[in-house]
């Protein structure tokens, strides 16, 4: 075998590579674009899940917007206070961020609590099930269908389906809002994490209809409104709404609610 058949390819292709490499090296100096060196630093301090909770295309786009356009670093709902503080120090801006929020499934309609209109054997996706006339198998047309469309879109593995409804792991939840968009029933809402007293029902039906469909629904008795000393509960469309800014965690409503759909008992046991 001729040794040249090995040497020629190595020398020629290698030589070409070196030639092009040198050319490109020169070109990269000549056409260098100045990039703000803070952008990659900010990018490193962000969570990097690219969840889109900030409204930008991803963490890279958000970092660029923060540095170049002065977008509020708190727009990233996922970021921990610690790394937000570091970014603020890096850019020399105010580090205080607004209150942390978490997703809340406003439904307690588990298999044992809620009735079904029929047995559903279709595609295991809430959006498909909700498109069927009647809006899914659950007797309550406002409740969680429990087919896990929210679970599929959660980038942080914070949602699990338990006993027929979605359950949020508040430690993992970052309030990116993907599940809120995915839910065809609009049963998921972002609420302040520190507020533990929450209404766990989404039904706008009248009391009688609610009772027929589900044993743990808001029947619109307004006992909570009357019991609240802080005027923190509004009543609208047959459903109680808690004003989280006014709520003082006194637990009066939690104790009064006849169907036990105002959550907050665990705060009592913790305290």
């Amino acid at each position: 075998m001729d040794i040249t058949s090995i040497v020629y390819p190595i020398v020629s292709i290698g030589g070409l590579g070196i030639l092009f490499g040198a050319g490109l090296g020169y070109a990269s100096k000549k056409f260098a674009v100045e990039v703000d060196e803070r952008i990659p630093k900010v990018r490193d301090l962000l969570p990097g899940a690219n969840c889109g909770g900030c409204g930008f295309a991803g963490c890279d786009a958000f970092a660029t917007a923060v540095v170049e356009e002065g977008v509020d670093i708190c727009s990233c709902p996922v970021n921990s206070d610690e790394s937000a503080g570091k970014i603020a120090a890096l850019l020399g801006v105010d580090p205080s961020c607004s209150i942390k929020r978490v997703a809340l499934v406003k439904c307690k309609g588990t298999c044992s609590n809620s009735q079904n209109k029929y047995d559903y054997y279709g595609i295991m996706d809430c959006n498909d099930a909700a498109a069927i006339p009647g809006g899914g198998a659950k007797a309550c047309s406002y409740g969680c269908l429990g087919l896990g469309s929210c679970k599929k879109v959660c980038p942080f593995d914070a949602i699990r389906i338990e006993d027929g409804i979605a359950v949020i792991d508040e430690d993992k939840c970052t309030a990116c809002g993907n599940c809120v968009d995915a839910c065809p029933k609009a049963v998921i809402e972002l609420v302040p994490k520190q507020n533990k007293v929450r209404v766990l029902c989404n039904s706008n039906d009248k009391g009688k209809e609610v009772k027929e469909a589900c044993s743990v629904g808001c029947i619109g008795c307004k006992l909570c409104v009357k019991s609240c000393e802080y005027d923190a509960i509004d009543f609208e469309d047959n459903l109680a709404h808690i004003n989280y800014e006014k709520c003082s965690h006194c637990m009066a409503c939690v104790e009064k609610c006849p169907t036990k759909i105002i959550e907050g008992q665990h705060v009592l046991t913790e305290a």
Partner: protein
Amino acid sequence: MMELFIIFLSAILVNNFVLSRFLGICPFLGVSKKVETALGMGVAVTFVMTLASIISYMVYNWMLVPLKITYLYTIAFILVIAALVQFVEMVIQKTSPTLYQALGVYLPLITTNCAVLGVAVINMNEGYNLIKSVVNGFGAALGFTLAIVLFAGIRERIENNNILNAFKGFPIALITAGLMSIAFLGFQGLL
């Protein structure tokens, strides 16, 4: 001269790279949402393809053939194309950041655009000389630009129409591309 003109015309219309040879479909579908970016892509590809024709001709005929290592042509051509694309990327990033952002990932992907490798290989197989290679490469690139700009124009119009949900986006785009391809078959009788 007549022969050059025939090569040129055939590369643009009769053997249109996208619509007759089905090469370079990736950017054809990827960056054809707006006429402006499609045109930018077309210009970038034109630049790369023309230069790639010249350099790959030189590499093949002046280096690989004398050394009798023509079997290495694929790797040599890809080396040439990759270096050229890198160069184009730097130039575009410097001169037009907007275009750079609009083209996005499709710009470095010209490297793997089979149309560019295709033109180099076709030049080699047809045994074209340097001038013919350049004309063929330039013509093929213009054909690509023509196809992608026309396609982008149609897609812009489709965007505002009421289309069945199942056909929205890529399905209708692929059907459109198929119809365009059939239309370009009409040029087969030209030469």
